[in-house]
């Protein structure tokens, strides 16, 4: 049997931990899918700086490096090694911050003791010794200031001078280092050069029939000469430009990269008809036949909770779920949540990062109506952090919902499964997703029904009018959302039963199907080329 070779082009940044990224899991599924086929062998092309991250990812996913070929730039540029060293040092410094603070306390206590001894000493020798020690201990913190002044006097240190500049850059915090414009600029140049080299390597591989790129953030992929397929999950930045710009105006740089990739791309994969037509055909003028819709595989969570205890399995699972729920509550940033004692608390659940398109604002308005107009004694559990979207924290405070809206960030997959399981209802108020939200299968898999936004990607899959009426709401209308939630809470069992057939149907599609669909498209575009 002849073996076809397909390439996967990846160029995540040097600091990414692929195990924590959805795209990492996507890549793992892809590689595993290929490993299970005799007729296909993958070639993974990546810059050398990803070697470590890939090793960790595949080790965690149980995938052997021998199951695919690699194509990489070999060795990192010295500048990147410096950057990595600086980053690790910064990280260590911020971790050491607490220890430093303890040292500082010790220093203060010593200084205080010294001055007490000095003022109370009766011996001449003690007076002199303590005096010198006091001068030293009090003078030490001023030494830096003194040195700066001397250098300033010698015209070697100016506010906007080179020394000041170097000092400022060296003493950036870990987070500041990531955001610093100069550092970013230098990093971009380095990345540019390295990825160009990677593309040269890719173009030298005649044996690879077609190349796949799992995201649209790397315009360099457009320079690959063989048939190429780019995956576009979404261009959410362009659908929520004001909100994202308010979060960080530098999102426009990311958008530019995506735009360049999309304008220069050839064939695309999206997860929904909506992104195909609205974004790639509608906004970027691509021919519809060059855009292939490959839907997600189902994501289920029941296996994370199921405890095999024979006859008592159900009770054991329930007990396990309760303990996980308590552990999830401990992740609340507030003491109120951390010390909450009732794992059987009734709540609505929305698992999502906080981003402008997630529409948490309207969910909060709807929740407020439920609590204060309909007197439903229920909580709302979210999984994002308000640090990601500070204005949401303000809304929660302004609505005085701090003790009823719990933000449990950083949940493990098991804790996530437990939250879904323990929730009265899952609510997904999103305004935009690239594909049908995972909420549906994840929630149903652990026995909890779902209500969702009536948005195009959802409508693509919920074609039954009755189901549409009972489980979808207008995401812009808090009253409609609240009414739908109320109905679902009152008709929980009925809703679950109505959703079950669709769930059963959806879980038939595994990630293996998804990967095979990708290979089919790669086959097709490879043949078209010749």
């Amino acid at each position, binding site marked *: 049997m002849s073996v076809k070779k397909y390439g996967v082009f990846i160029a995540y940044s040097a600091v990414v931990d692929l195990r924590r990224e959805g795209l990492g899991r996507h890549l793992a599924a892809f590689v595993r899918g290929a490993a299970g086929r005799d007729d296909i062998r993958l070639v993974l092309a990546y810059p050398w700086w990803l070697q470590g991250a890939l090793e960790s990812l595949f080790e965690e996913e149980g995938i052997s490096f021998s199951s695919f070929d690699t194509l990489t730039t070999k060795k990192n540029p010295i500048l990147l090694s410096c950057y990595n060293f600086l980053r690790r040092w910064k990280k260590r410094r911020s971790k050491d911050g607490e220890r430093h603070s303890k040292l500082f306390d010790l220093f203060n206590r010593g200084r205080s003791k010294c001055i007490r001894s000095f003022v109370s000493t009766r011996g001449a020798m003690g007076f002199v010794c303590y005096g010198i020690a006091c001068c030293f201990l009090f003078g030490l913190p001023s030494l830096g200031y003194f040195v700066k002044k001397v250098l300033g006097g010698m015209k070697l240190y100016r506010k906007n001078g080179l020394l000041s500049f170097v000092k400022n850059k060296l003493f950036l915090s870990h987070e500041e280092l990531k955001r610093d414009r100069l550092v970013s600029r230098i990093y971009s140049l380095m990345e540019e050069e390295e990825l160009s080299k990677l593309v040269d390597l890719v173009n030298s591989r005649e044996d690879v029939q077609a190349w796949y790129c799992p995201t649209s953030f790397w315009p360099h992929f457009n320079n690959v000469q063989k048939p190429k397929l780019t995956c576009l999950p979404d261009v959410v930045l362009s659908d929520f430009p004001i*909100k994202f710009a*308010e979060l960080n105006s530098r999102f426009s740089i990311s958008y530019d990269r995506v735009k360049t990739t999309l304008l220069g791309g050839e064939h695309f994969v999206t997860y929904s*008809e909506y992104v195909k037509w609205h974004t790639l055909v509608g906004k970027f*003028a691509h021919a519809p036949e060059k855009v292939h819709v490959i839907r997600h595989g189902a994501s289920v969570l029941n296996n994370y909770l199921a405890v095999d205890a024979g006859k008592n399995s159900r009770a054991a699972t329930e007990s396990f779920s309760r303990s996980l729920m308590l552990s999830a509550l401990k992740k609340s940033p507030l003491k109120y949540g951390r010390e909450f004692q009732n794992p059987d608390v009734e709540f609505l659940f929305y698992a999502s990062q906080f981003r402008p398109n997630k529409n948490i604002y309207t969910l909060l308005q709807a929740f407020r109506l439920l609590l204060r107009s309909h007197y439903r004694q229920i909580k709302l559990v979210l999984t994002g952090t308000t640090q990601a979207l500070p204005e949401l924290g303000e809304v929660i405070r302004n609505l005085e919902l701090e003790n009823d809206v719990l933000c449990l960030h950083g949940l493990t997959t098991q804790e996530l499964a437990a939250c879904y399981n323990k929730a009265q209802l899952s609510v997904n108020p999103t305004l935009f997703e690239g594909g049908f939200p995972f909420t549906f299968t994840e929630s149903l898999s652990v026995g909890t029904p779902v209500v969702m936004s009536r948005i195009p990607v959802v409508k693509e899959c919920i074609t039954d009018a009755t189901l549409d009426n009972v489980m979808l709401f207008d995401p812009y209308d808090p009253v409609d959302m609240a009414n739908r939630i109320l109905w679902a809470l009152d008709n929980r069992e009925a809703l679950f039963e109505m959703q079950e057939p669709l769930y059963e149907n959806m879980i038939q599609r595994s990630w293996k199907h998804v990967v095979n669909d990708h290979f089919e498209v790669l086959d097709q575009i490879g043949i078209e080329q010749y």
Partner: protein
Amino acid sequence: MDKKSNRILWLINHTTLREFEIRQLIELGYEVFVPKSFPYDEGNLSASVSYEFDSRLSIPYSDLEVLNTADWYGDPNDNVWNIANKYFSKIFFAFFPSQLRSVVRNFHGDCILRPFGLAKGVTYSQLIEQELGPSFGTELRRLGERFWFGEAYAHLHEIEDDFLKKRAIHLPVGLKDVEIHDDWVGDEAKIFFVCPRIGSSPYYNRVYQTFVNDFKPMPYVIGGAQPISVPDKKVAGFVSRERYDGFMKGLRVMFYHSQEPNHLHYHPFEAVRCGMPLVFMGGGMLDSLGGHNLPGRCKSIKEARYKIERVLFGDKKLIDSIKNEQTVLLDSMSKKTCAPIWRQGIKRIEQVSSRRQSFPLANQPRIAVMLPVAYRGGSMRAAISLAKMFSVASKLSGKAAEVIFAAPTECLEKDEQILDLKANGIKVRSFSWKKLSWDTAKAALCMEGCVNPPLQQEYIVPDDGVNNFLDCDFWFFISDRVPAPLLPIRKYGMIVYDYLQRYVEGFSVPNNEQQIDIVRRAEFVLATTDFTVKDLQQYAGVEKSKVFKVPMAIPTMKGVGQGGRKESNYFLWPTNVACHKNHVNAMKAILKYYESLGGNLECRVCGVDSQLLLEKNVQIGHVLEARDILNSSQRSRMKVQVLGELSEDEYWRQLRDAKFLWHPAAVDNGTFCVLEAASQMVPSLSSDYPAMREIDEIFGVNMLFCDSTSPSDMSQKLKYMEEHACERVKSLPDVKSLHRYSWESCSQAYWEVINKCL
């Protein structure tokens, strides 16, 4: 090819282009329509009309007639576009902004823009956003594969934004006839320099001045149409074709100045065809056609002067070498070169067009009707009516737009009319204005796809907490009172009621200049009276074509025709505390009415904030003065009763039972109160100003008018109404005739305007 895909609208009137391009299209098997009129402006100096191709068109004569009379450079009406969409599959058009907008919004087939290049440093991407607003770029991109950047020169796309680059297709400029005629005699030792529009275009004026400075001592003739005459005997101005040909034959040499990298004129080619020696500056587009070694090419003005001098002195060797070698320039314009490229280009358009699938996710258009300031009373009622009008009319038209009513939170908390909106299927959202810094605004516009974000220091956006109304396709503002520069991220229109600041001294509008700017940038502006239409043009300076007069629609007529009136002993004065309500004169009139004329009726004052008229701690100048006047008479004070802001039901009850309604305001856009009163069979006494006269004329309310500047006249008319109100009831219009102006009846006129922008 079916009949429709066989037809092209070629909306260009350039004579030389037409001679070449239409023939190309005909040879490729197309029927072509060309416009029969064009604006006689700067951009159309080389334009003409031709009926030559009409006979080939296989469309009904009556439809052709409609197309022939259409204004293709402005905004052809819906009927014209319906015919165009029925019979034609492609449209070619040059860069005329209003034409571009109209084509993009109305034509359903392939839209091929014909760019011929711009001055150095200017791009079409920039111009599109500059002329039509940043949000138009998004509209254009939405055409996707239906749009083509049909560049006349193969490199034009290189400086454009990514979308135009991607949509570029080369359709070269050609000449019908590239045969060398060699008619040139050159017996007149003068330079022929073509430079049109010297007096009207700063660009060409600069070209002219430079030429004169560089070649002053030499003899020359300047050709090219001059819409404004130039006081220079050497400038020939517009000449007949024969005389122009005479210049080509008789003058010794042509000088072509242009070093523009993206634009080329026709006249150098005409010279070459005629056999006239062409001396030209290198570095321009001629280099790309003839290379760098043509004998007529000059690297500097000094070299040009030297070569021209030699030609003028009759240096035969140089003349011959220039003439012999310059013929290469015509090669690129020849049919032999251009036809295959045209064929290939049109084939590509056809291929893409034939495999185009229809967009399966057509969205219902969504319109946000926004009240920019927390108004209550009349403005709120009008806003609610407008939302209902758009909703109802869109459904009737079959487009079924989703209408969102948006207002500041404080308006929505109290107003009972919101329930009415919800009952009409209109969603309601509250919002506040949010400021955006320059870099945030810039980033937002970039992510929206804007190529050249404008550069104001600060912008505002409506914030609904969700997505800043970007889910809506169009924003419609009730009044121009948007409090700061609006981020140009969505197209918007508005209704403007009045410009009181123009007429009422002391009526200051904060940020007046900026509000005017917001009106000017709107896609369209609606007004309900001729008076405001005129103000929009004369005061706000809005382009005429963007201003639409729509019928005054009566927001609500509660209990129409249901009598129930009691014998009343009061008249009703609806007002608020704004100074144009003319409180001082009104109070003086009231004083006279009670003190001198023995007025018997009670005066009941109602309206938003009207209770402030009697509140002691209010320190508004004109309110203080009015209150002092009223308090100076015990009798008057007793007779005037201030009701304040009334609920809807109470307002209608007070109105229904009044003897008459008094509207003593100095000036405004007219008040609906008189119509509401008429619907309750209550006559009105109103100040005499244009908008009220218009209302009287349109609705036949038969108001009694008084002079708002004369308290004496006002008081006498009050007395007159006291005595004759009952008789005047008979002259009120019947309810049916008023119903013709209900919001439901008027909604279509409003919808027609907004629909053009969706």
